[in-house]
């Protein structure tokens, strides 16, 4: 109860502050604020000039623009709908439908969205196939100055009695396009709802980093304090995955670049109104940086939108020669000594160097992709199948090490061959001596002499190591170099242990007294 009062009080104070600052205060980075502010500023200036002229001329003071807190900052959303241009959709009906969509979305998201919903202008009309091939850069160029946080474009196409609805979202913050959302219905009465559904589904809420201390990561949710009516539409629910990205600014606070953090997903583990705590799933140690003065660390909701993801595997620096026939495991958790994860989905990369990982039917959608090369694991990456149709994985070029692995395997085989043969010849020599078959005895002794010696083996291992290490050094692959040396050292150790010349000398000593002079 006490908690409730505290929270209510905080909310009330915040609302008061927001109302207080709603006109003169503008969010510095809010595109809507940026776009609207000059106009309003101009208007204000105009009014003030008139007043000044009419009344007492006052010295103009610089306005303090205080942006609303991130969690109280609603999204400025533009929803454009491209209705079919045929006789079934006259102007009046299109207007009705657009109004209905506006009402539906407004009721769903309430204060969370500052919504503008309208039919696409002739120049803005799209088709489903055009949306499929939409280029984020073109959309960014078109809408970056429009003052919207999100532009949701929904295309309605009538195919026979079926109405197909395709939606897409452009995000100002990440300057990316969302995956396509497709719906269809045969009931024309549901068309407005269908469009609203598509827009809702395409919408990707964003968040901003708040705490980054070691493994502890917490984010603020944009407009998190304005929860939608339907809890299912609430942003960042537990178990959902977010993708982090970093926005870099220049000295004048101009946006310079946006970079996503590769192979990193943030899983929502706890949500408290406008804040979420996340767990990092990444191929790297601590991939999410702390926010800086000219750097914003953001997150965005990630939803699986395809049945599967196609993953291209290629060695570092040669994308044109992808990895063919490589063994990949897809597991739901990373194996450890205690838990080797026996249940694995095994894939082999195709001739194009790809594997196709389907969306898991149940449980946590996150998977780990392990790329094997012989005894080495080249990559171990988290992956959310279905969130992207095409992924590319660059792994170290392991050819030199793999060649050594093969050669070492063959050398070990030869070593076993020599040792086993030597022991059998020893046994046969002893048997021949026992039978006093000195012809066979001499023959077996010659065979012992003909067996490969340790020095020969050492020479082969040295040559092998030299060539492979040189290749690894040329490729500046320190890990491969170490692994090559380790492999060679191992086989050398075996050779030294088992091809010890003392073993043959000992046998000769044993046999010396057996044969009469």
């Amino acid at each position, binding site marked *: 109860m006490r908690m409730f009062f505290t929270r209510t009080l905080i909310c009330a104070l915040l609302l008061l502050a927001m109302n207080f600052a709603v006109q003169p205060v503008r969010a510095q980075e809010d595109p809507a604020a940026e776009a609207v502010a000059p106009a309003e500023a101009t208007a204000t200036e105009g009014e003030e000039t008139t007043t000044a002229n009419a009344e007492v001329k006052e010295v103009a003071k610089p306005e303090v623009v205080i942006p609303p807190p991130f969690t109280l900052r609603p999204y400025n959303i533009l929803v454009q709908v491209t209705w079919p241009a045929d006789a079934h959709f006259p102007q009046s009906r299109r207007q009705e439908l657009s109004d209905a969509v506006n009402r539906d979305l407004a009721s769903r998201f309430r204060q969370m969205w500052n919504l503008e919903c309208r039919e696409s202008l002739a120049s803005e009309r799209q088709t489903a196939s055009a949306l499929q091939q939409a280029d984020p850069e073109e959309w960014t160029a078109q809408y970056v100055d429009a003052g919207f946080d999100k532009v949701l474009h929904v295309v309605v196409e009538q195919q026979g009695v079926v109405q197909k609805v395709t939606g897409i979202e452009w995000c100002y913050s990440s300057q990316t396009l969302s995956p396509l959302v497709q719906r269809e219905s045969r009931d024309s009465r549901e068309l407005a709802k269908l469009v609203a559904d598509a827009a809702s589904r395409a919408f990707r809420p964003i968040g901003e980093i708040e705490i980054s201390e070691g493994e502890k990561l917490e984010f603020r949710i944009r407009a998190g304090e304005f929860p939608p009516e339907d809890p299912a539409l609430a942003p960042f629910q537990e178990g959902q995955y977010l993708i982090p990205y970093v926005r870099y600014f220049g000295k004048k606070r101009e946006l310079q670049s946006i970079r996503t953090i590769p192979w990193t997903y943030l899983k929502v583990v706890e949500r408290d109104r406008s804040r979420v705590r996340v767990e990092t799933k990444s191929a790297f140690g601590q991939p999410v940086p702390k926010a800086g003065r000219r750097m914003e660390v953001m997150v965005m909701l990630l939803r699986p939108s395809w049945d599967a993801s196609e993953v291209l595997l290629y060695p570092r620096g040669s994308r044109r020669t992808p990895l063919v026939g490589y063994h990949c495991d897809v597991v739901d958790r990373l194996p450890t000594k205690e838990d080797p994860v026996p249940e694995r989905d095994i894939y082999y990369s195709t001739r194009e160097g790809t594997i196709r990982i389907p969306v898991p039917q149940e449980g946590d959608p996150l998977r780990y992709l392990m790329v094997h090369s012989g005894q080495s694991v080249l990559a171990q990456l988290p992956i959310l199948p279905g969130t992207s149709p095409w992924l590319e994985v660059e792994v170290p070029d392991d050819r030199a090490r793999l060649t050594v692995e*093969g050669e070492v395997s063959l050398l070990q085989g030869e070593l076993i061959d020599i040792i086993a043969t030597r022991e059998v010849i020893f046994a046969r020599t002893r048997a021949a001596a026992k039978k006093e078959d000195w012809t066979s005895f001499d023959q077996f002794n010659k*065979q012992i002499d003909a067996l490969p010696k340790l020095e020969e083996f050492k020479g082969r291992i040295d040559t092998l190591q030299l060539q492979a290490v040189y290749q690894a050094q040329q490729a500046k692959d320190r890990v491969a170099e170490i692994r090559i040396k380790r492999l060679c050292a191992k086989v050398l150790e075996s050779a030294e242990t088992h091809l010890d010349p003392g073993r043959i000398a000992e046998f000769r000593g044993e046999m010396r007294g057996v044969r009469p002079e």
Partner: protein
Amino acid sequence: MTHKLLPQFRLVGLDVRQVMRVVCYSILMALAVLSLSANAFAQAETETPATGEDGEPAPEPDPIFKLEDMQVPSIDTLLNERALDWIILATDDVYVVESIVPRPNTLDKRKLEIERKQEERRTAPAEQRKAIAEELEELNYLYVALPDVAGNPERRIPTRLIKEIVHHEDLMMRRARMLLEESDIEHAFELISRLEKDWDAWPGLDALHNEFLLVDGKARLAAKNWNEALTIFRELYARDKQYAGLSQSYGQGIDALVSEAVAEDDFRRATFHLEELTARFAGHPVFQKYDAQFTAQVNKLIAEADAASASGDYRTATMKVEDGARIWPRTPALQPAYRKHALRYQRLHAGVLNLPEEGKSFFLPAPADLRVQPLKSLPLFEVNRMRDGTAYYRTRFLDEWEPYDLGRRMKFTLRQFRQPSDMHQVIGSPDVVTQLLRLISPERPEFDERLASYIENVTVHSPLEFTIDFRRVPPRIEPLLEAIRFQSPSASDESVDSDETDETLIGPLTDVGGFRRISVDAKQYAIQRALPEPDGLPVYHVAEIVEHKYENFEQAVQALSRGEVSILPELPDWIVRQYQDDEEFLQAYRLEKLELPLTQVLQFNPSSRVLRTRELRRGLAYAVDREKILKDIILRDEKMRHGRIITGPFFSDSPARHVLVEPRRYDISSAIAMIVAAKKILTIQKVVEEENLPRLKFLVEPGPLQEEAAKEMARVWGIIGVPVDIVVGTDEGDGQWDIMLRSLQMTDPLVEIWPFLTVSDRAQLSDLDDYPDWLKQEIVDLDRTSDQSRALERMQELHRHLWVDAALVPLWEVDQYRICRKTISDSTAKPIYPYDGVDHWTQEPWFSLTQ
């Protein structure tokens, strides 16, 4: 004699011994009475002392018998007892004496001696005449020894009193004749054999032998042992061609055999017997009977052949005259009819040991399948020749194929014309492109993953031109596109071709031609030209190949010499060598070496858990004495002139071979060592329990030599502790195998090594799943290398690694030969496979008049 009387004595109720005693006494009494007169004569003539010096009573008189009482001794007496001769006096009294010397014709010889002595006396000086006279006097007496008499058995009988001497041998012959009369062939043969053994030429023995042979032959005829009877008659014929009754009996035997052969529809056998008969007895009635009968039959077939030919059914016409030649090649009207029909529709008969499509448990194409495969499905490119181990290709469909854009694009122009004798049809772009699209469409069963990975785009410019754009440049285009093969629509699935929903079908398909299988008798396999040659051509070519199966190579060679077949496409080396220097043989036949040798290897099943252990594979490899098997079983040639030990699955002169790889030695010590190591490893890996290896299934390609070699390998493996069950390729199997003995001809290792290693017909990535990553990547890298020389380097390295890994056991390569009758004209200079260019072969009609 005695035994014949026994029942009679028994009838009167007397004891046999008593009877014998009575008989003996009676005979002695009779002889005593008879001897009274003879003794009186003998006392006068023989110089036997009447009394002893001491005045003792005279000894018993010599036993003398009457001729009419004499009986020919029994076979037992003649063979087992002392040889006794009969001296028959002019009085028909008979002395039974010990063997007389000289013999036979003792009296004649004595007579000659007397004449010689008399001549000697006439010319002798006076002082010697007395001695000669004495000698002459002595020669008038024959000194004999009586058997079983007391005192001096020697007697002197004047020769003038002797009417005849019947020697023991004569008695044997008399007994033999008696036995022959009684049809006791066995005992008669025993007597004759003894006589022939002891005497080279006893008077009358030859005649007796002939008589014996005739009687024996007749007895065998009566027992319906025709062949045995004929064998005996042949012996008699060799002794006396004109022997009375021989011709008739011989004819009787032949008649029976011919009847049997005709009943079994084996006219070649019937002809053989009749030929034999007429060769011995010209104009024999039996021969004439069948001659008339068969000639009528063949004339009827000729009439049917003419009718079939007139209706355009040339195959039936040829088969009818072939049947005629089979039934009675002596038919006068056959030769022109045969020539006429067999020239129009030429059937090539081949003698083989294994027919195509015979493999059951052996799922890969066997050499018999590879023999006909290039005719049944025509490849876009086929190997034309090998030079320095590199294959050069030819095509029957393309006019030209030119690379553009540094090989990234290839433009193909199809041929517009064909010769009437060509077995293929002119094809269009849809035929090739449809095949290509099917090969690169993942949803099609023909999908070729490797080809699909190369091809970016296919553009059809016109009905005769198309272009292929490649994603990456293949080292060589021809082996890559060798997978494009055209089959006659009837041989493939028509429903697939005519499926309208088939997106790969870009136009109507042409019946490309080639040869297609037709049904023939059991133990035969036939393929026929899909596009028959039109009427009105000056020359026709081989229209059908009929392979006849024989039990062994010797039978196949015999069939060639008899004219049953005209070509032997597969030959063991010892037969090749036998005929290589036989000038007489080479006058009638061509012995030709094929361009490609046959390579044989042992391959391990990549999915066999036990054989994934390298040590086990190496152990098995060490235990194969390849040189010995090649010398003793495959070639039967110590010098191995037509065979070589190989180190890889490709030819010994292939540039894919790593020069440092040497043949693995035969080393039982190492084999045992590796097997022991393998057992330990497999036990640790829990693949086997307590070091007990499971019985491995050894699948062997069909072929007698392959089976024999496999048995030898399995025997040694059994000795070193690897139990193996041989599965012969022609037997039904359960699809399971661990080791395989197979033959192959890898012309382009860069392209073929992958499907070979994965025991598949195409290079599929998924087939490499069982291989270690390093080896898999080597194979993949080789496959992706565009540069020919780099690809060869990789191939050589792969060869070395495969050898060290014992991924397979290369065995040997053997040169291939074929034998054709010279009635076949073949323009192919260096044939790649036995029927290479068969659509341009012509065959001069020929059949053997004698079988």
